[in-house]
């Protein structure tokens, strides 16, 4: 069965936050794919359909902003949301569409995702 739910790739090296975030997003009506590293996330994006990438910033290996650049290189229309424990947007966040603090809470997270998806769907639906 092909679900019409938007697919969100959720990336975080820590398991508990990743699971809980996934659950919140699923409850909000998204299909969630998870990945615990930037490397596997790039593979997933290349191998299957993903509508939006939601990544933690600080991870071992490639960090969130680096991941965003790699994804944008191959999928320029893929929205990338960066989630961070730091409140300030990192300086090299050029490839990131939306920056969000972890302190914002689940409701605000869902709002931002919805807004980003809507933003990216618009040009596609126009033609």
């Amino acid at each position, binding site marked *: 069965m092909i679900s019409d739910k938007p697919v969100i790739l959720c990336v975080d090296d820590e398991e508990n936050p990743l699971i809980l975030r996934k659950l919140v997003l699923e409850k909000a009506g998204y299909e969630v794919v998870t990945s615990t590293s930037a490397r596997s996330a790039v593979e997933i994006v290349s191998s299957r359909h993903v509508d939006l990438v939601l990544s933690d910033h600080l991870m071992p290996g490639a960090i969130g902003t680096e991941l965003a650049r790699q994804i944008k290189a191959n999928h320029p229309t893929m929205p990338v949301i960066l989630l961070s424990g730091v*409140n300030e947007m990192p300086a090299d966040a050029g490839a990131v569409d939306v920056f969000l603090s972890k*302190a914002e809470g689940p*409701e605000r997270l869902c709002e931002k995702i919805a807004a980003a998806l809507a933003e990216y769907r618009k040009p596609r639906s126009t033609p």
Partner: protein
Amino acid sequence: MSVNPKVNILMVDDQPAKLLSYEVILSELGENLIKATSGREALEYLLKTDVAVVLMDVSMPELNGFELADMIRQHPRFQKTAIIFISAVHLTDLDRLKGYERGAVDYISVPVIPELLRAKVSVFAELHRKARQLETLNRQLEERVLQRTAEIRELNSELQQRVAELETIMQVLPMGVAVAHDPECRFITGNAALSDLMGMKQGDNLLKSGDGELPYDIYQNGQKLQPGEFPVQRAAANRELVGTVELEVRRRDGQMAHVLASANPLFDDSGQIRGAVGVFFDVTERKSLEDILRERAELLDLASEAIVVHDSAGILSFWNSGAEALYGWKREEVLGEDINRILRTGFPVPQKEVEAPLAAAGRWEGNLTHYTRDGRELIVASRQALKLGSRGRSVILEINRDITAQLQAEEALRRAERLGAMGRVAGIIAHEINNPLEAISNAFYLLREHPSLDEEARYYARLAEQELARVAHITRQTLSFYRESQYPVSVAISEVLDNVLELQSRRVQLNGIILEKVYRTAGIIQGFPVELKQVFLNIVGNAIQAMPQGGRLRVRVYECIEPSTGRQGVRASVCDTGSGIDPEHAKRLFEPFFTTKETKGTGLGLWISKGIIQKYEGTIRFRSLRFAREHATCFSVFIPGTAFGQKQELTVSLAAS
């Protein structure tokens, strides 16, 4: 010498009887009677003694009276000796007698009348006595004249010595002396010192020079004097003392001297002016010392430090301008007063521990507290030195530098560093909390909606979630500010304020606050809307909280130029009539974790706001006025309008270079 000394009367007669009768007649006179029985004997007596009168018989054998008289007269000593002849009168005799008339000659005819004889002898005796007395007097006078002459000669030579001494003194005197030798002062000579001072040869007329031009000019108060105005000339012309005047002698060879001059007129015996004397005291060295001292004093006055001099009892004798400026006390108010009483000196150690090293080593350094005239407390770095002054009095020189501001700045820096460190620690902690916080928030979000929960469990979850929201609020505030995008956008401050006021409108209404909005401009700047919103949310929120019983809230936006920097920009001010700011709190208002709201506030709002505004190179400040009936508190934010534009230009120009 007796008053009436006896004189000798020589009686000559060849007849002793006659001699005897004369003796009888004349004995009454009380004179010395000498008898001679012949002319020869008479001559012998005459030669031996001083005889007043010779009484002789004309007719005597061997040598008669006339012959004897001739002989007597021939002797120069006896030319004036009185001779009385005794004889019978003959015409021829009378003629002869005339020959003797030059001298004192008389005759008595025979028979001798005793009274007549006595009278005549007495007259001659008296004459003789008078003559003798005159002679004596004369001799005495002559002696006295001689004596006087000798005395005068002695005085004269003494005077000459004195004059010579004076001359010498004048010549070696280091002070210049001028003597005018005529009433018109045409000829003035100077001693060695003065001639030297004027650049002339000693003994020369000071008013004449070989080539007609004097080798010097004299100035008084910068004005060149004509010779008639010189002190000596003035003294002679005005017949009065010229008191000390200060003159400047400028010599043609370039040398200059400062002299103190005074002059006195000279009068002759009749009270006529005959010249004048002037004294010139070279004070050039003293003058240059005075100049140095004056320069030093001026330097002392230029010093921004307080420089004071006092004795060991603290009694002030010097107080420079720096001290006046620092302490607010004028020189004339404090001289003669005790410095420690005036300034209420606070010593870091007992006063004795300051005085002891000062007395032993002559120095002390340390910080003192002083109070200014208007009661401000100062901390001064004090350096004191003990100096042995003249007349054995020791004085203490004290130099005090105000380090109050420096200490305050150091303290502020320390505090800022401490706060900065605190802020960084808080940021790190908040960051570490954010990760689990998100997970927990998500967990409670899921839990709250979970269908297996009963009403009670859901309530618990909701409570937990609310408290988690507080934690999230703290971490959001604590971390350096959060920007949603990387590049600044155009933001209208008035819109941000409207947005904030909209959010707060319920509380404004509830508290019964009257809102006044004065937007002179939209206040468009380049920035990040979310963080600007946070700034004004904090300021407006505080203002509303300060007015639980209502009041007026005035919000203004206008363009202005910051007076201190001249930068153009937008100023937004938020004023309330609420509880005001306690002066005690004013200093700490922008510190992190400072709050007056007890448990309700994080104490981070204004700290964060200030941090944000500083990123815009702006300023945030406040003023709180406390009146009897109400207080007014005004927070004002200035954001330079072109700060971002300039920043970009700067970056570009740096990159280009």
